[in-house]
């Protein structure tokens, strides 16, 4: 059973900190052993307790440790991480330690080294010589790499709901419901975007083709032009229909202005794909003057980094689409560096993929017409996710109104 030793000192009896810490341990399903207890003899003398804390699983242990550290419990250093060589390229050793989206560090030669990047579902490869520890996915490990196994010497610092700050965004982060006052949530999203931009961090927009279908492209273009988006993750369809809209005024054959199907409109997106392929890609389409409006055009003009990851049902795809999924994951991983806020709109797959790459400290807003999608995305182990069930176009309209007020 994973365990740690903590110490508690001070006037821990009269302040009820000792019983409180023990209550926290057992109340959360852990067990403790009081290894040592010295009670101060005079009123002013401090007392001292040494407690071994154990829990069935490492996440629960970390949760307990985090909470009792708030009550003054301090971890006593125990031992270094255990390492085992990777048995082959792309294969981790048995019992490899699996990361979460919370910051963690590993003890090597008596010193804690932070694991970078903060990313879930990775193993940890240690370079003792360089005193570095990397979170790597399967594709990133090479035979013989020293990989952390078990939980010894691994310390996780869960990102807390930051009760110390007045963060309206976090206050809003709760259950997803279509009944939630949308204006309040949208104001929280706007504030988070503004803060992120002002702090010099990046805003990531993860968007599905419904942005085009619902007629929200002009709003998103305005967001981009106002500097509220630095990175865009999407798939083939968003770019295809955006270009289709730019060239034909339709999205999947439907006139975006009037909402009516257009004669032979179902072919528009295929012609659009063909023309972009002929030009050599979206950047080329903009640079040659062929593509002059739309979301992708705005991305190119405003230097928004975009990454389009393919899927098995894609038409085309556009030359810009990365069709090797491991490659796409790696590229996305590089681009989330410095992202302070992620707005995920109307795409489940790309949103989950982005969510998997983001540290728990990154604030996330998920907007979708389907409550199940919002719940699924908002409930990904982060206090910093808020969800909004709404149609895409009115959402962006309202968001812009708030941001431009």
């Amino acid at each position, binding site marked *: 059973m994973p365990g740690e030793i903590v110490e508690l*000192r001070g006037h821990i009896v009269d*302040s009820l*900190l000792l019983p409180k810490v023990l209550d926290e341990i057992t109340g959360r399903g852990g067990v403790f052993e009081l290894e040592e207890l010295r009670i101060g003899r*005079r009123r002013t003398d401090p007392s001292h307790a040494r407690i071994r804390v154990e829990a069935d699983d490492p996440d629960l242990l970390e949760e307990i440790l985090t909470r009792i550290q*708030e*009550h003054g419990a301090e971890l006593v250093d125990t031992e270094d991480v255990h390492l085992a060589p990777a048995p082959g390229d792309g294969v981790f050793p048995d019992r490899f330690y699996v990361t979460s989206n919370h910051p963690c560090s590993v003890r090597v030669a008596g010193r804690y080294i932070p694991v970078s990047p903060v990313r879930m579902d990775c193993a940890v490869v240690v370079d003792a010589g360089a005193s570095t520890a990397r979170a790597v996915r399967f594709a990133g490990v090479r035979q013989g790499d020293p990989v952390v196994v078990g939980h010894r010497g691994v310390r996780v610092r869960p990102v807390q709901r930051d009760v*110390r*700050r007045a963060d309206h965004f976090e206050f809003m982060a709760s259950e997803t419901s279509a009944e939630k006052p949308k204006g309040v949530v949208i104001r929280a999203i706007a504030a988070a975007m503004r803060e992120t931009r002002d702090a010099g961090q990046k805003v990531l927009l993860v968007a599905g083709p419904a942005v085009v279908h619902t007629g929200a492209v002009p709003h998103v273009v305005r967001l981009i032009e106002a500097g509220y988006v630095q990175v865009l993750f999407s798939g083939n369809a968003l770019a295809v229909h955006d270009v289709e809209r730019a060239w034909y005024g339709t999205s999947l054959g439907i006139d975006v202005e009037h909402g009516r199907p257009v004669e032979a409109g179902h072919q528009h997106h295929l012609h659009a794909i063909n023309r972009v392929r002929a030009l050599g890609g979206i950047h080329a389409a903009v640079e040659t003057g062929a593509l002059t409006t739309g979301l992708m055009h705005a991305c190119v003009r405003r230097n928004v980094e975009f990454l389009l990851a393919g899927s098995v049902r894609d038409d085309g795809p556009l030359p810009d689409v990365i069709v090797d999924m491991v490659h796409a994951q790696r590229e996305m991983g590089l681009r989330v560096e410095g992202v302070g806020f992620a707005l995920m709109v109307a795409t489940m797959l790309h949103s989950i993929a982005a969510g998997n790459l983001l540290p728990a400290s990154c604030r996330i807003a998920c907007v979708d017409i389907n409550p199940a999608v919002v719940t699924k995305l908002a409930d990904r182990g982060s206090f910093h996710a808020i969800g909004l069930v709404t149609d895409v176009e009115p959402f962006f309209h309202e968001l812009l109104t708030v941001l431009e007020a």
Partner: protein
Amino acid sequence: MSPRPRVLMVPPTYYGIEYEINPWMDRRQPADTAAAQRQWDGLRSVLVDRLGAEVCLAEPQRGCPDMVFTANAGIVLGDQAVLSRFRHAERQGEEPHFAAWFAAHGYNVQRLPDEIAFEGEGDALFVGDTLLAGYLYRSEVRGHQRVGELLGVRTLSLELTDPRFYHLDTCFCPLDGQTAAYFPGAFDEYARRVLAAEVPLLVAVVEEEAVRFACNAVVLGRHVALNTGCPNLEADLRTLGFTPHATPLDEFLKAGGSAKCLTLHLDRQLVRCLDGGVPEVP
């Protein structure tokens, strides 16, 4: 005759809502500088003219809008001043200015390790010989332990549970060695039990007055300076033999502060007795 009580204040020259680090602060609701100055002058006048206090002033600093809240400069006992280590970077710039002031005025300045947050008298108040200290939002239990060791006093940590009352002095006000006013909703159950055991007479403040920062009051002898709009606490104080002095401080409420936050006691004294040190609350 006891000497004049001494408190530290900083004029609100650079006071303003420039960031948001507690639920009261909202940059869209800025402070009215002139009104803040008037209210600060009003409090100072109550302390000096009516309560006979000596008010020492530290120089306000541009870029330190919250420096006006001197209760968070540190905690003073005898000639020892334990300097605060602010939780938020926004306020850490105040530390060297307060350190310089304490040193220039003959205090032995004690510092906590950089990684431990402790926000001075804002989170540490004496009841008799015991230092009651608040934690979670700003100060850490580890900080309380170090302060207790440095000052050689019994220190009991109390967990705060309502972000509106993020410092102990926003929800707890010792009146004398036996009596204190408090807002029960700001404490967890363990803390309420500790308070019940430590303070023989606890006066509960109603929520409407707690959010007026009724507990954020300056107590000098049997006189209590506090924000206006707290009639119930004023009545309780009179019943207990204290004289309340209400003075408007709403401009400071915008930043989550009131009378007590604007002052730091400079003359807590250690009186030796058989069982270690006993600070005497002036």
